[in-house]
């Protein structure tokens, strides 16, 4: 009973049906991992799937499908099935490869699909000689069997096709085993047996406990080494599940310089790290440059250019006050990317997290493509594959930018991206600052117009006056005087204008254009709204122009005469004043200087399974070609003392070329054995 059960299991696991089912299951299981992004931080999954599904999917291992237990079990079954299949097939296959089946009886030969009569008449010895020579010349190996009524020549070729079976299927087993050695399994085993456990990512390397450290004797890992320029590292960080392990390396890597070269259009051209590797045991060291596609192997560890980051660039920042009504001095801030600085101020407390720095930003600043239609549109696509020069795109480096977060006391953070240099848009120049609440959003940009000196000082001075309640009256009074002069006759007009101007400033100081718009919608009948808006805009422009003159007076400069560029500046300045009320930060951080420090991220690996996988791959290719393209054929030629002979052919494939081959051989043999034909020249094989 037990014997038959195990025999049944053997039959099942080594069966084709089971193997095909496994291939299908494996294919479907693989799809999951391409749909659910793999190895993301667990928080991302929590956001994506919600609190109900997140733990269920985690249990199912959907965040690292290809390392999940059940997936490895499928692979193990595939190896088992293939292995058993090989075991089961070995004996019969070898018999097939070796044997000629020269004892086949005529009755069974007559069952073959491909069979043809051969002419008799020649003496048997002559027949046999001619056929044997033909078979040898055609690349068959043959064996003869004497019978009562004649002789059977059993010939075969292409037996190597069967060897292809062993190569290809053995290769699958090898590749799976090699892959297993290079996957997460060895790490997991060390965690179970060696008592290792992962730890959180946010701590100093020196603080990481021994239980999360892997020694140099670990033979299989894949980790990242982060090295800022001018610094060195001798450990790699290995990510596993939602934590990390520290892998100690037998050498120290120092980064001299990290290079990024760009093409003209801003695409990256080359990433390279100039490193010095120092052997910890011998103290020997050498220099090397690692590039993408050009890894370095040393002491069994392979190092790749994987990524890069900021290595703690020094940023010099001027923090300019944006809080309404207080004229705080410019805050001089200096910090490195990656640092968190405390901004303490009588009116606010913020943590400034410097998160990134980019020295170049290549953007398309063009006006967009001109739409071409019809024949013209078509001919534009003729010619070379080079980019057309008139396609409306204009790639430009718009200078350095940096990103930071401002976190308030409640822990709420907003993210910012500020450009260092003014950027041209439609002939005018602006300083851009972007802000967003979460990573999922795109940055919304505030653009501050720069004055004739290329600075934003004027705008800030304007802002100080326009949004200062204490100076509202003074500004309104001056505006009224400029508008109507000092005469007695205009006193009433002036009074009314001052009132309106103060109201306008109050409204504008709340939510900029938005509150003025709301005011008009509520208080002005539909028909007069447009005119009212016009009046408001005119008053605002007059007020801000007046404020501009006040700032010049304060610094002892001569008053300005209005002209078109200044009018344009005025419009931009007012728009920026309005938008700045939604900027949700107490300070505008202006980058005034930097010293870039880059960091390179190298991936370091040890893959003990690689040779197995590569050998397996080679065998797989050989096996597949042998199975598909070496055609196994058996030709049986039965010759008789008297009467007609018989030729039959068997093949392990049914295909049209089998029919063709048979027809060709049958025709050739008929010709050879025709008693009327002259004897063929004795041609040795190979000619």
């Amino acid at each position, binding site marked *: 009973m037990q014997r038959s059960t195990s025999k049944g299991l053997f039959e099942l696991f080594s069966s084709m049906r089971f193997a095909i089912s496994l291939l*299908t299951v494996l294919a479907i299981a693989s799809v999951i991992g391409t749909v659910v992004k793999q190895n993301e931080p667990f928080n991302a999954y929590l956001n994506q799937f919600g609190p109900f599904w997140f733990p269920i999917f985690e249990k199912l291992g959907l965040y690292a499908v290809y390392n999940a237990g059940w997936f490895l079990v499928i692979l193990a079954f595939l190896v088992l099935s293939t292995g058993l299949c090989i075991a089961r097939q070995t004996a019969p296959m070898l018999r097939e490869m070796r044997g000629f089946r020269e004892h086949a009886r005529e009755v069974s030969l007559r069952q073959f699909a491909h069979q043809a009569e051969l002419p008799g008449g020649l003496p048997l010895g002559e027949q046999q000689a001619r056929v044997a020579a033909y078979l040898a010349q055609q690349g068959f190996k043959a064996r003869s069997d004497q019978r009562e009524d004649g002789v059977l020549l059993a010939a075969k070729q292409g037996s190597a096709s069967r060897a292809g079976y062993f190569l290809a299927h053995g290769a699958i087993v090898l590749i799976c085993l090699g892959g297993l050695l290079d996957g997460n399994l060895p790490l997991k085993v060390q965690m179970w047996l060696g008592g290792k456990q992962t730890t959180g990512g946010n701590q100093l390397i020196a603080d990481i406990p021994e239980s999360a450290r892997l020694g140099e004797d670990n033979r299989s890992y894949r980790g990242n080494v982060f090295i800022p320029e001018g610094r060195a590292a001798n450990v790699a960080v290995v990510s596993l599940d939602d934590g990390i392990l520290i892998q100690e390396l037998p050498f120290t890597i120092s980064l001299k310089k990290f290079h990024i070269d760009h093409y003209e259009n801003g695409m990256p051209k080359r990433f390279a790290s100039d490193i010095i590797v120092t052997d910890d045991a011998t103290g020997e060291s050498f220099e090397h440059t690692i590039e993408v596609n050009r890894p370095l192997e040393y002491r069994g560890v392979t190092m790749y250019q994987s990524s890069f980051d900021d290595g703690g660039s020094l940023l010099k920042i001027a923090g300019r006050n944006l809080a309404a009504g207080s004229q705080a001095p410019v805050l001089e801030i200096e910090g490195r990317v990656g640092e968190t600085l405390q901004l303490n101020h009588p009116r606010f407390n913020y943590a400034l997290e410097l998160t990134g720095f980019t020295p170049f930003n290549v953007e398309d600043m063009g006006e967009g493509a001109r739409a071409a239609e019809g024949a013209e549109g078509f001919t534009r696509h003729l010619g070379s594959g080079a980019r057309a020069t008139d396609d409306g795109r204009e790639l430009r480096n718009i200078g350095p930018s940096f990103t930071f977060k401002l976190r308030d006391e409640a822990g709420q953070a907003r993210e910012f991206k500020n450009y260092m240099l003014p950027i041209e848009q439609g002939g005018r120049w602006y300083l851009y600052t972007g802000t967003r609440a979460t990573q999922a959003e795109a940055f919304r940009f505030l653009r501050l117009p720069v004055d004739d000196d290329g600075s934003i000082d004027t705008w800030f001075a304007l802002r100080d006056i326009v949004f200062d309640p204490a100076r509202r009256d003074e500004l309104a009074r001056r505006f009224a005087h400029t508008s109507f002069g000092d005469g007695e006759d205009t006193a009433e007009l002036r009074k009314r204008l001052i009132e309106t101007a103060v109201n306008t400033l109050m409204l504008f100081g709340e939510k900029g254009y938005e509150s003025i718009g709301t005011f008009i919608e509520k208080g002005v009948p539909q028909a007069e709204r447009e005119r009212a808006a016009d009046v408001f805009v005119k008053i605002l422009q007059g007020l801000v122009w007046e404020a501009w003159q006040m700032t010049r007076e304060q610094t002892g400069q001569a008053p300005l005469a209005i002209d078109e560029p200044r009018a344009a500046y005025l419009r931009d300045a007012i728009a920026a004043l309005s938008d700045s009320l939604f900027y949700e930060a107490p300070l505008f951080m202006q980058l005034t200087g930097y010293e870039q420090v880059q960091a390179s991220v190298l991936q370091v690996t040890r893959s003990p399974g690689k040779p197995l996988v590569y050998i397996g791959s080679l065998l797989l290719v050989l096996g597949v070609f042998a199975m*598909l393209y070496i055609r196994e054929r058996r030709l049986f030629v039965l010759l008789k003392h008297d009467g007609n002979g018989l030729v039959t052919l068997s093949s392990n494939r049914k295909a049209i070329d089998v029919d063709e081959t048979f027809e060709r051989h049958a025709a050739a043999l008929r010709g050879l054995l025709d008693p009327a034909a002259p004897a063929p020249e004795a041609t040795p094989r190979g000619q």
Partner: protein
Amino acid sequence: MELAHPARSPSGVLRNRDLFDWLYALALVAGAGLALVRYGAFMDIYDDLILLLHVPVLIAIGWYWKPFRSFLAAVAGLSLASIWLYQGDLARAEQVFFLKYLISSQTAIMWMSALYFMATGAYWLGLLARSEFGEKTGSTLVWIGTAMGTAGLFARWYESYLVGPEIGHIPISNLYEVFVLFSLITALLYLYYELRYGTRRMGAFVMVVISAAVAFLLWYAFSRGAHEIQPLIPALQSYWMKVHVPTNFIGYGAFALSAMVGVAYLLVERGILASRLPAPRVLEDVMYKAIAIGFAFFTIATILGALWAAEAWGTYWQWDPKETWALIVWLNYAAWLHMRLTKGLRGTMLAWWAVVGLLVTTFAFLGVNMFLSGLHSYGNL
């Protein structure tokens, strides 16, 4: 049929050559020699190896499949003419008549597209009207279109160096370029089977998938400007690209071809066009042959990809969506071959399977770039 069964012994292979065979081989050897002598300084050892390996492979293909010799000669002629007309100045693409309207890369690819569309029409006309003339026209148009497209890719290769010496690279680096490659390889595979099986009746079906690829190509160029030569990102700067990508597209092309033949098989089985199309056993045989060659090359391509990944990304396999879908495609056709060769399955089931296989293949080829993110994102739509 012109295709003689090649003699088995090596000396027989050499003895059965005609003059054209020898001239063809000589031209290839001379061409490769000239390239090595004149431009060897610009090539590394891998470039040299790839160049040298091409010589015997192309000689073997040309000797075994005679029309290929004339095809390759035409491609060489057109490409060299294009290079000669350029005289090292990209602007001449707009000024010289033959460049602007015949053999600059974009124009040549437009010709290829137009010829493929016309060929599709001719094959269908030939099939429906039982017109041998229509089929022959279709065949000729495919040959010319393929020669134009191939020459177009070579011209594009040259143009990329004119855009900038540091930008120059083989034109198989983005979705636009590989779509051209896909059309060409599928067409060539089809032309081979056309001669091998002595029937032009399958052209109507195979050209449909090629026309679809060309339609996509045109949309991609006209509405997305995808035809512009772009420099190579660091990850693609490797000699592996030269072997990995074309090998892969032999696989894709063969799978696409088998699926279209599968469609023809299913129609014949239902009595549609049955008197016009080849016999089911012929269709089935082509289907098997195409999947066999596709599977063999896809296996090599995936392995080459793994070797490249090991060098560029630090591991030969990391379950990137493209890798995973390549595996799924491979498993799919592995199962197909097992069913046919070992289980002896035949007919409808396998034809349907080949058709579904094309959907899986298309997703691996296109869908992964469109819907999934990963390391192979060289051509987002």
